[in-house]
């Protein structure tokens, strides 16, 4: 077994390679995520952060380079249900109850009915939606739907959680509450998380490390360590928090020197 939840080295993703409309989405990206670590990917649109997540999830394949997820190829990891994934849209199936939406990954993994049901209810407990188990997804608010999606992504108890702007469509208050819940859940289950976001405070609040990316071509420019310890509501107002926010902001503007080797092999800093 690998010591890393995710290990990516020299990853390139080139769309329409060789054609006139060739686009380099990822250029020589290397990233290691330790087990139990929370890493955010941040950067402007087109910086390849979602593409990197999709390569890790084996929703698309890398053009060049090595990717290991839970010590295996991304394809094997996907087939093994080694990761759970949540998107910006909750992507719930309208014709299933909330409980049966959470059961979906278990159903496809071949769990029997009773075990599935018990596990789904346990997860709905965890996201505090136990009372809504038999509701229909569209009867729930956006934040509640997203909690269902997170419960679903955790269904098979994966080692790794991949999240693509899961709170992007939520209002600020709901968003902060969801962030706390996510940290609580990830901590309780010791899940490694790779979290794509546009929001600097969100990235800083959630992560052990913030990976800053830059477009054309998509690449990692900085990795910012966030040594904030256990988070609570005071964290958001602490000086250390604002310092980290500033560090990430500077990195995004390309003004800061690359910081934080801490476990991450930094790609080039062009």
């Amino acid at each position, binding site marked *: 077994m690998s010591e890393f939840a995710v290990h990516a080295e020299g990853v390139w993703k080139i769309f329409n390679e060789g054609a006139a409309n060739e686009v380099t989405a990822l250029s020589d990206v290397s990233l290691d995520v330790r087990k139990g670590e929370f890493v955010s990917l941040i950067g402007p649109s087109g910086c390849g952060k979602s593409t990197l997540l999709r390569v890790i*999830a*084996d*929703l698309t394949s890398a053009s060049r380079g090595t990717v290991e997820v839970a010590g295996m190829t991304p394809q094997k990891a*996907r*087939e093994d*249900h080694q*990761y759970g*994934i949540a*998107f910006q*849209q909750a*992507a719930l*199936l*309208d*014709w299933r109850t909330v409980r049966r939406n959470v059961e*979906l*990954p278990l*159903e*496809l*993994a071949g769990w029997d009915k009773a075990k599935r049901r018990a596990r789904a209810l346990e997860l709905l407990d965890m996201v505090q939606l136990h009372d809504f188990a038999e509701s*229909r997804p*569209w009867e729930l608010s956006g934040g509640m739907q997203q909690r269902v999606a997170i419960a679903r992504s955790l269904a098979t108890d994966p080692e790794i959680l991949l999240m693509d702007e899961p709170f992007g469509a939520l209002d600020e208050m709901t968003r902060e509450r969801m962030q706390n819940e996510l940290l609580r859940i990830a901590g309780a289950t010791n899940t490694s998380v790779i979290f794509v976001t546009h929001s600097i405070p969100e990235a800083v609040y959630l992560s052990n490390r913030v990976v800053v990316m830059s477009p054309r071509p998509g690449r990692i420019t900085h990795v910012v360590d966030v040594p904030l310890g256990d988070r609570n509501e005071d964290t958001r107002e602490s000086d250390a928090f604002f310092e980290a926010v500033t560090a990430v902001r500077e990195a995004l503007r390309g003004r800061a020197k690359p910081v934080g080797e801490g476990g991450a092999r930094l790609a080039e800093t062009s």
Partner: protein
Amino acid sequence: MKARLNLIWPPILLGALFLLAWQALVVIQDLKPYLLPAPSLIFTTFTSNLNLMVETGIYTATTAALGLVFGTLVGILLAMVAQRFFVFRNLMIPIAAGIAAVPIVALTPILNNMFDITSRTPRVLITAIVVFFPIFVNVYRGLTAVPPVQLELLRSLSATPRTVLRVLRIPNALPFFFTGLKVAAPLAVIAALVAEYFGGPQEGLGSKIAASAANTAYGRAWAYVVVAIIVGLAFYLITLALERVATPWAGRTRSA
């Protein structure tokens, strides 16, 4: 409940007023039945020939139902093939459009010649041809118009194409299917009736309307028209009921 009643009364009232105005027009203007028979005449013809009316209605309804089922099955099957096999997709859609453009009126005598003169088969086939297109188009759309994010989710769960069909595409297509069926069901009745109109056994509403009109029995012809409307409405309402049962989640956005 009260809100429901408020929905039901206006159309009934409007219908009653319409019939009243019709009756008044015929009586005051002293219109001859071959121009326009009075509703009262149609009604008495209807009630005094009730058994025949019901029998004829059932004959046509059976033809329409057989054609509806057959056309629907073929429509669903071909939509699934078109969705699953890329090669067929570009082939199937023009063919489906071609079938939609078949002039059924002209086709009827040809089919009547191909089969036994007492056979119901040509009528069922014509109905099926008419039914096929709205079903195929809607089901195909329902199977393919799946949110990409849900496809990615299922891919992340390593779902096979068959599983994707079962857990995503088919449920997604159900509301589309019923939209198609709501068009196809009354259309099936009309198609069966038109097919009866153009030869074949002297049974069914189409034949009887033609025969009554030819015999100047205009009251009877109109009474059969009323039966045709009842059968068409029944088909529509049955579809509506099926839809409610089969797609409870789609209730919010359901069309009439």
